């Protein structure tokens, strides 16, 4: 089973060629408009003072997304970041902070992070959500953080994610729990999560 990881944890993960050279660090993750797959990464240079790189890493050039590094075939896979971002936006710009509601209009919460599957698929399998009080009553001081599976019926409407009501019947409190949860839920990612 490929490992699940949150997209924010990918930031600063090194980008390493199969030849063993580190070429950059991940700055942010880029997803497609339907929030179903990773389409690439924006990069930062390797040095202490190096800023964002003009090159981006499209998902097609990624060999595998692993726990300790993003493996790419070689340096030539990098493309101009501006070209990669034509129809897409980074996670930080578009998804984080988005509202998540059910089809019937029940507020679920706000998206804090996106959970992706490692390996070669790059599927988005769920979201880390700060649950609204109506969805999950929690302590008075702060809202509960839960992991919500993406399902295959997610609708993206502007800055709001709309999920069918039955998709949020089961949520998980932590990433290991979420891993077993999506492992048991039939969905389009089944192929990439054996």
């Amino acid at each position, binding site marked *: 089973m490929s490992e699940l990881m949150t997209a924010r944890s990918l930031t600063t993960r090194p980008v*390493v060629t*199969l*030849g*063993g*050279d*580190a070429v950059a660090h991940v700055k942010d993750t880029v997803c497609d408009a339907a929030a179903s797959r990773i389409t690439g990464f924006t990069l930062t240079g390797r040095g202490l003072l190096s800023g964002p790189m003009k090159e981006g890493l499209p998902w097609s050039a990624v060999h*595998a997304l*692993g726990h*300790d*590094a993003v493996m790419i075939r070689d340096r030539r896979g990098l493309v101009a970041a501006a070209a990669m971002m034509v129809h897409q936006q980074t996670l930080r710009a578009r998804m984080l902070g988005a509202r998540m509601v059910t089809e019937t209009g029940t507020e679920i919460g706000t998206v804090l992070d996106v959970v992706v599957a490692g390996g070669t698929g790059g599927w988005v399998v769920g979201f880390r959500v700060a649950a609204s009080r109506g969805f999950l009553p929690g302590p008075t001081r702060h809202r509960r953080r839960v992991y919500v599976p993406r399902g295959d019926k997610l609708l993206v409407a502007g800055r709001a994610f709309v999920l069918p009501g039955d998709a949020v019947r089961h949520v998980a409190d932590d990433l290991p729990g979420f891993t077993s949860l999506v492992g048991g839920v039939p969905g389009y990612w089944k192929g990439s999560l054996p």
Partner: protein
Amino acid sequence: MLFTEVRGLPVVSPAEAGPLGTVTSLTVDIASRAVSHVRLRGSRLRRETVLPWDAVHAVGPGAVRVRSTAAPDTLPPRHDLLGRRVLTEAGAEHGTVLDVAFDPEAGRLLAVFTTRGEVSADRLLGLGDHALVVRAG
């Protein structure tokens, strides 16, 4: 033979009376999975010199005997295998390199011993400034 056994051995040449220096490291060519160069140092303050593996006549016991002392035309990148981080092809860390076994006759690599187990030489994919990449097995 092991890389750590070769490190520190004196390098002797038939043309010169005293030893040229001691071996500091062996440089490997991952594509051919063999030792490509020997790095040696005359004394602690002298610069490192590089000899191609073809110039080596015999390794051990007690010394590395070389035929010639001609430096190679192109200097290999200085990527020492010992102590290097190991990454699998899938991007997961697999410890660091403790030692490397090689055939002293041909210079062929046999196995890499990491802090998390042995990796046979046919699983090596690449060696760069960040890590040694191995095929998942």
